[in-house]
């Protein structure tokens, strides 16, 4: 039984990382109907920005929680800029074109970030400095959780609550909701649609950056292609929860994380990815619009 709870703890931590990345996918999708393929690479950039700022601040030698927070904020700020640049330079010009043209643009941006990463950062994996030393906390019954796992959980939850607050309570959040319903109507109401879209990219990229830093903190190995698989899985998680739906992305991420860990632990590690996708297909066949997504009848 201890083994099961240990797997559950690991699954929830890993799932909350998926959830953070999935939030960015789902927000952009809700507003633009665009699968932002480059999102996983922004997650990678987040980890690298943190790597360089930690070295710049000298955090690796004298780790303090305050410094760690500074590194996190710097990485989020860096990725916010990247998100804005990507949106303005690549996605805005194709916004009026077909969705597939936008998708190919996103794929192009993703390839560009990966290959530029290999060129600039080098292809070999880098060691992410231990900005918070690891300790294990016993939960009783042989189950342990590391302080880093706790940090991942806490920061994820704080960020998710923050996001929910922004979307539901602030003016800009309400404007985001309006834009996601109808661009034209929102523009007629005096909302600057362009600015809201840019803002959405900014928030999404910041969440991805946070996920990148949190993962690097726990698994201190970063490399330019580290975003591909988590990005893909997080996207699947977003669809699983019902794409465009913020609580759905969180639930989807958690399910994905727990399911993966359980499959490895109890079924077959070699078929992990396959079983994760089989699970996904089964869920989608039962609920074609995802777990929390509504199946909207098409108007004629």
């Amino acid at each position, binding site marked *: 039984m201890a083994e099961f709870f240990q797997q559950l703890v690991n699954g929830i931590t890993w799932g909350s990382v998926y959830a953070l990345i999935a939030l960015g996918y789902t927000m952009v999708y809700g507003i633009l109907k665009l699968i932002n393929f480059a999102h996983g690479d922004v997650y990678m950039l987040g980890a690298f920005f943190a790597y360089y700022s930690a070295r710049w601040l000298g955090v690796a030698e004298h780790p303090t929680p305050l410094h760690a927070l500074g590194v996190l904020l710097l990485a989020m700020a860096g990725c916010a800029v990247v998100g804005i640049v990507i949106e303005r330079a690549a996605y805005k010009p194709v916004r009026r074109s077909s969705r597939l043209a936008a998708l190919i643009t996103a794929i192009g941006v993703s390839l560009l970030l990966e290959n530029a990463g*290999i060129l600039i950062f080098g292809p070999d994996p880098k060691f992410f400095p231990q900005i918070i030393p690891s300790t294990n906390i016993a939960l009783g019954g042989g189950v342990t959780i590391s302080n880093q796992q706790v940090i991942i959980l806490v920061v994820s939850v704080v960020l998710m609550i923050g996001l929910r607050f922004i979307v539901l309570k602030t003016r800009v959040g309400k404007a985001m909701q309006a834009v996601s319903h109808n661009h034209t109507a929102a523009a007629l109401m005096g909302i600057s649609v362009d600015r809201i879209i840019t803002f959405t990219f900014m928030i999404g990229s910041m969440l991805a950056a946070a996920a990148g830093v949190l993962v690097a903190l726990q698994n201190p*190995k970063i490399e330019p*292609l580290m975003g591909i698989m988590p990005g893909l899985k997080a996207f699947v998680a977003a669809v699983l929860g019902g794409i465009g739906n913020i609580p759905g992305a969180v639930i989807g991420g958690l399910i994905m994380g727990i399911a993966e860990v359980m499959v490895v632990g109890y079924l077959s590690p070699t078929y*992990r990815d396959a079983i994760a996708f089989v699970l996904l297909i089964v869920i989608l066949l039962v609920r074609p619009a995802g777990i929390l997504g509504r199946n909207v009848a098409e108007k004629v």
Partner: protein
Amino acid sequence: MTSRIRLRPALGGVLAITLLALGCGGSTQDELVIGEYGSLSGNDATFGQSTKNGVELALDELKAAKDGKIGGLRVRIVVEDDQGRPEEAATAVQKLINQDRVCAVLGEVASSRSLAAAPISQAAGVPMISPSSTNPRVTQVGDYIFRMCFIDPFQGTVMAKFAAQNLGLKRVAILKDVRNDYSVGLAQFYADAFVKLGGQIVGEQAYSAGDQDFRAQLTNVKGKNPQAIFVPGYYTEVGLIARQARELGITVPLLGGDGWESDQLLEIGGPALNGCYYSNHFSVDNPDPRLQSFLKAYRAKYGADPDAIGGLAYDAANVLFLSMDKLATENAETFKGLGSAAAGSDARRAATTRLREIIASTRDYPGVTGTITLDANRNARKPAVVIEIKDGKKVYNTTINP
């Protein structure tokens, strides 16, 4: 209409570049062109770069020692990227042989890419030396294909012997990388050898290259109570695996192969790797002057210790240079066939045939990755060293002969 007009110069430009690129094939000056292909981009980019570094270093030394010339011909190395994809490797080697008219090919790290490219080299009669493809099938493609590393069965046996006899272990679990032919092959041969020596494989778990989280597999392995875990992967994952294993309270040693050798292994794994063992081609604390000068030159140029792949690539390039040099002294007339001017002629064919024989006759070559002797199957036979990680340092433990 406007957009169509804009399109024309663009298409014209692409066409012009195509023609230019296809047009500029050969150069007028006679030189020795050697091809190298590897994964400079994609998932395995770090291994492709290491190979390139090793080859470059060998060429640098040739430049310093002999003005970059063998038998009076200047050596030029053309490097092509295969993005870590087998079909791209095949295309890259086709390009090297037919477009750049190379007289020999160096590459690849991964057996899958070597296997895709080897038939092309074999058919064209161009010798190919793989620095580090360990799958036995690679050199079985034909008599023009060689390798500088030991093959999976040998390395698997080495670690099995070491675990059973030197460490006296009985119960070992395996954690392998299923996406990696090297890892799967090594795990297989290790398990066979270990069981033959009276040991028991208590659990077999797997991951995929690029994974970040191994806790689920390790939690499962922990439940089996092994005395050691054999992790035949690359250092890119092993450091994290060690870290997570210690976090979950697994204290038994991890064992591995030459894929572990890298600076980053200790950097990422840190204290979690203390008490672990892996087999390798060389030990950095071996006082052999050749190895030490290689390590010094490598550090000076790239600012890091070489991984095993970089060392093997360095040896592969040097064995090739030496064989070419032997051909030049043995028969200057035949040697001329290797020059770029002779590409496509019967003289080239005669030269590469003789070059092949000379490479195949390599005996007791003092490489940095050990003393290399090529056997009848064109595989390198050399001893393996076992390295122990002690207090964050790699320490020589023992040598195991083939």
